[in-house]
C-alpha cells in the first residue's frame, strides 16, 4: 500500500508517524494536539499532488513549492537555530510601529507588552498552550490540501493569540515569522472573541536560496468583533514559500486584510475569508511587486455562507524584469446567503517586456438576491501619463515611480490610518529598488 502511494505521487517527501510522535514528545504536547497531527498526517500521506487542471495550481507546479525531502532532524525544533540573528533584527525594524514583536520560533517564550497584558491578551506557544485549542484545524481543515495537511501534521513553531471578549486593543500585535531553517512549518492561531477588536501584523521574513516555508494561519473573529490583519511577505531572495490563511467571521464581525507581498523566489499564498455569520464584512487590500525572476501565485477567496454579508477586494500587481504573477480570486455566494454583496478587482501593471501576468477572477453565485462584480485588467504604463510628467520635467525612474505610486494610491488609501504609514514606507522602499533597476 505504502509503495502504491509513493508511486502515485512521485517525489512527495515522506513523513512517518514516528517522526510526528517524536515531534509531539519533544514539544511536550497535550494529547488532543497530537491527535490533530495524526489526522493531518494520514490526510497528507493519502493525498495526491494537487490537480493541475484546477485553477488553483494551473500555473505553479506544486513540486516546485514542496521541499524534496523532510528528514526527521529537519522537523525537530532542537535542530533549528536562527540562520542570521541580524536578519531578524533588521526585519523587526521594518515596520515603524512601536512595541516589540512576538517571534514565532520553535523555542520562543512569547511575551506581550504591558498594555496587552493588562487587557488580558493571551500569547502562548501552541504546543504549551493552557488555553482551549478547540479551534485548531477548524478554519484550515485536514482536507484543505496537501501543503496544509503537511503543516497540520508537522508544524514545529506555533503561536496562539487570543483577544478576550470585549477588549479593544489599540496597539498592533506584531508576529514575526522568520524562515530560519531549511524547512519551516509555522502555524498561527488567532482568536478575537465576541465584541473584541485587534490588529495583528503577520510578517514573514528571512531565508535564502534553499529555504522552504510552509505556513498556515487560522483566524477567528467573533460576533461583532473586529480584526485588522496585515500580512507582510518579505522573504529573502531564493525562498520558496507557501502560506495559507483562513479567517472565519461570525455575525456582524468585521475583517480588514492588508497584504504586501514582495519577497521570495517562488511564492504561493492562499488567503481566504468565510463569512459565516449574518452581517459579516470583509475587505481586502493587496499589493504585490515583482522583480527579477520572481514567481508569485496569489489566490484569494471570499465565501459568503450567511446572508446579508459584504465583501470587497482590491489586489494590485506591478511587475518588472522577468517576474511573473498569477492571480486566482474566488467569490462564492452560497445558496443560503441572500442579500449578499461581493466585489473584486485585480489590476496588473506591466513595467517590462519580459514580465507575465495571468489572472482568473472567479464568481460562483448560487442564489439570486445578490449583487456581485469583478474586474481585471492587464496593461503597461500609460504613455500619456509619462508624457505629462515629462512636460513637467519629471522623467526616467522618477516619473515611473510616480506613475506606479499613483496606480497603487487608491488601494493604499483604503488601509486604516494607523497601518497605512508602515505599509506605504514598505512600498516606497520596494519601489525605489524596483524602478531603480532600469
Amino acid at each position, binding site marked *: 500500500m505504502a509503495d502504491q502511494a509513493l508511486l502515485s505521487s512521485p517525489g512527495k517527501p515522506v513523513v512517518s508517524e514516528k517522526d510526528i510522535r517524536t515531534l509531539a514528545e519533544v514539544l511536550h504536547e497535550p494529547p488532543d494536539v497530537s491527535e490533530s497531527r495524526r489526522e493531518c498526517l494520514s490526510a497528507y500521506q493519502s493525498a495526491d499532488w494537487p490537480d493541475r487542471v484546477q485553477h488553483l495550481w494551473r500555473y505553479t507546479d506544486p513540486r516546485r513549492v514542496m521541499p524534496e525531502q523532510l528528514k526527521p532532524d529537519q522537523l525537530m525544533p532542537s535542530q533549528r537555530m536562527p540562520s542570521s540573528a541580524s536578519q531578524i533584527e533588521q526585519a523587526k525594524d521594518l515596520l515603524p510601529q512601536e512595541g516589540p514583536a512576538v517571534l514565532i520560533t520553535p523555542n520562543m517564550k512569547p511575551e506581550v507588552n504591558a498594555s496587552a497584558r493588562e487587557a488580558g491578551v493571551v500569547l502562548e506557544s501552541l504546543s504549551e498552550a493552557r488555553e482551549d485549542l478547540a479551534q485548531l484545524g477548524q478554519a484550515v481543515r485536514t482536507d484543505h490540501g496537501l501543503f496544509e495537511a503537511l503543516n497540520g501534521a508537522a508544524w514545529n513553531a506555533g503561536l496562539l493569540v487570543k483577544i478576550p471578549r470585549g477588549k479593544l486593543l489599540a496597539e498592533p500585535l506584531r508576529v514575526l515569522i522568520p524562515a530560519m531553517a531549511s524547512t519551516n512549518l509555522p502555524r498561527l492561531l488567532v482568536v478575537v472573541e465576541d465584541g473584541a477588536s485587534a490588529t495583528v501584523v503577520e510578517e514573514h521574513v528571512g531565508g535564502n536560496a534553499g529555504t522552504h516555508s510552509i505556513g498556515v494561519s487560522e483566524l477567528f473573529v467573533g460576533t461583532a468583533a473586529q480584526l485588522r490583519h496585515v500580512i507582510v511577505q518579505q522573504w529573502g531572495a531564493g525562498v520558496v514559500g507557501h502560506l495559507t490563511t483562513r479567517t472565519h467571521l461570525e455575525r456582524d464581525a468585521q475583517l480588514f486584510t492588508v497584504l504586501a507581498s514582495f519577497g521570495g523566489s517562488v511564492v504561493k499564498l492562499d488567503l481566504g475569508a468565510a463569512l459565516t455569520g449574518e452581517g459579516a464584512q470583509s475587505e481586502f487590500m493587496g499589493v504585490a511587486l515583482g522583480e527579477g525572476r520572481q514567481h508569485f501565485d496569489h489566490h484569494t477567496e471570499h465565501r459568503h455562507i450567511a446572508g446579508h454579508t459584504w465583501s470587497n477586494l482590491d489586489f494590485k500587481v506591478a511587475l518588472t524584469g522577468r517576474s511573473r504573477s498569477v492571480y486566482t480570486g474566488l467569490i462564492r455566494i452560497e*445558496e443560503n446567503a441572500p442579500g449578499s454583496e461581493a466585489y473584486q478587482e485585480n489590476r496588473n501593471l506591466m513595467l*517590462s517586456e519580459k514580465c507575465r501576468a495571468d*489572472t482568473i*477572477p472567479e464568481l460562483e453565485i448560487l*442564489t439570486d438576491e445578490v449583487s456581485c462584480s469583478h474586474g*481585471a485588467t492587464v496593461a503597461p504604463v500609460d504613455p500619456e501619463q509619462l508624457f505629462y510628467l515629462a512636460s513637467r520635467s519629471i522623467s526616467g525612474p522618477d516619473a515611473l515611480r510616480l506613475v506606479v505610486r499613483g496606480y497603487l494610491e487608491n488601494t493604499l488609501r483604503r488601509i486604516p490610518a494607523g497601518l497605512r504609514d508602515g505599509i506605504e514606507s514598505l512600498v516606497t522602499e520596494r519601489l525605489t529598488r524596483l524602478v531603480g533597476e532600469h
Partner: protein
Amino acid sequence: MKASPITDLNQDYKAKYGFHDPEEYIHKAPKGLSHEVVEMISRYKQEPDWMRRFRHEALDIFLAKPMPKWGNQELLGSIDFDNIHYYLKPQGEQASSWDDVPENIKRTFDRLGVPEAERKFLAGVTAQYESEVVYHSIREDLAKQNVLFTDMDSGLREHPEIVRKYFATIIPPTDNKFAALNSAVWSGGSFIYVPPHTKVEIPLQAYFRINAENMGQFERTLIIADEGSSVHYIEGCTAPVYSSDSLHSAVVELIALDSAHIRYTTIQNWSTNVFNLVTKRAYAHKDAVVEWVDGNLGSKLTMKYPAIYLMGERAHGEVLSVAFAGDGQHQDAGAKMIHAAPNTTSRIISKSISKGEGRSSYRGLVKVAKGAENCKTSVECDALLIGEKARSDTFPTMEIAEDDVKVEHEARVSKLAEEQLFYLQSRGLDIDQARLMIVNGFIEPFVRELPMEYAVELNRLIELEMEGSIG
C-alpha cells in the same frame, strides 16, 4: 415583493419541436463505439482511404483520452457512450427539391418552418436529419459565383483537394476527447468555400435535427472564406423530448484568410435531454474578421467555448453570446481569444440568464502571446438571476505574456432589479410585461445582431418564457 413562479423557457417545446417521427431507417448502427462501427461508417460513405485511417486514429485517441476533469462532473459522468447509436441513415437520397424529401422527414422540417424560412430570406439551406443531410439547396446566383455550399460528405467527394487541405487543421482529433469522438464518427455538417473577393450577401443556413432516441449526432462543419470574401452562416438545432439522453458533439472549423469576414450564428435549442458538447474554433488571418454569435437556449448540458485564433496582424475577433438556463439545465459556455499577432483586437460579450434551478457558467480564455504587441481585448459578462435556486458562475482566464497590451475583463451578477420593476409598474405595465421588458433589454445587444426572422423567433421564445410569471 414575493418572488413569483416563472414558467420554463420552451414550455411549448414538446408541442412545437418535441414530436418525433416513427423510425424508418435504411441503416442504423448498433449501439456502442468500436473500430467496426467506424469502419462501417467509412465504408458506407465510400470514403477515401486517408479519411478512413483518420477516423480509426481518432477513435484510438478518443479511447485513450480521459474525460475532462473540469466542468459539471456529475452530468459528464452520466454520459453512457455504450448506449448511443453513432450512425443513423434515414430513408431516401439527398434531395435538392423540397418535394423529393421523404414525406415523414419533410413533415418534420415543415413543422419547424425550414422551407418557409428558405423562401423568405436564405441563400441556401442544408437540413440534416440524424446523421445525414436530407435536403440541400443553394441559390443559382451563388452557384454561378462558384460559392461552394454542400454537406460535408459531398464536400469530401466533390472537392477532396480543398477538404484535405483544411480538414482538421484547426481542430485536430488530439484537441479534446469530444473532438476525437467527432473525428471518428462524423457525418454530415456543412462545407462552405467562398472564392476570393466574393461577398455572400444573404445568410446560408443549416438546420440540424435529432429524431431517434439515444442518438448521437456528430456533424462536421468546415468554412473557408478566401481572401477578401465574406459570408454569414446560421444554424439551428432541435430534438424530440425522450426519457433518455442524446449526444450532440460537433466540430466546427472556420478559416478566414486575409481580409475575409466570417460570421457564424447559432441558435441552439436542443431539447433538455441532449448533451451538447461542441468544439468550435476559427483562424483569422491578416486583417480578417471572425464573429461568433452564439445563442444557447436548449440542451441538458452545453459545453461550448467558440474560439478565435488571431493569427495575422490587425485581425479582429468577436464573440457575442446569450445563454438561458432553466430547471435542470447547465449552460457551460464561453469564449476563447488567442492573440498570436500584433495589433489584433477582440471583444467578448456574454449574457446569461439563470432561472429556477438553472445554472449558467461563463468559462473563457484571453491569451496574449509573447510578441503580440499592441493588442486590445475586452471581456464583458453579465448574468441575470431569476429565482433563489438559480446559479451563475464566471471563470474567465487571462494569460498575458506581453507588456504592450490592453486587457480588460468585467463581470456583473445580479437579480432582476426591483427598482426597474417598480419603475415600469409605476408607468402602468403589469409585472409580466415589466419582467419581459427588462429581460428583453438585457439581451437586446444580442438580438440586435440576429437576422430579423431569428430575432423575432428569439423574442417570441423569451416572451413565452416570461408569460404567466405572476404568482
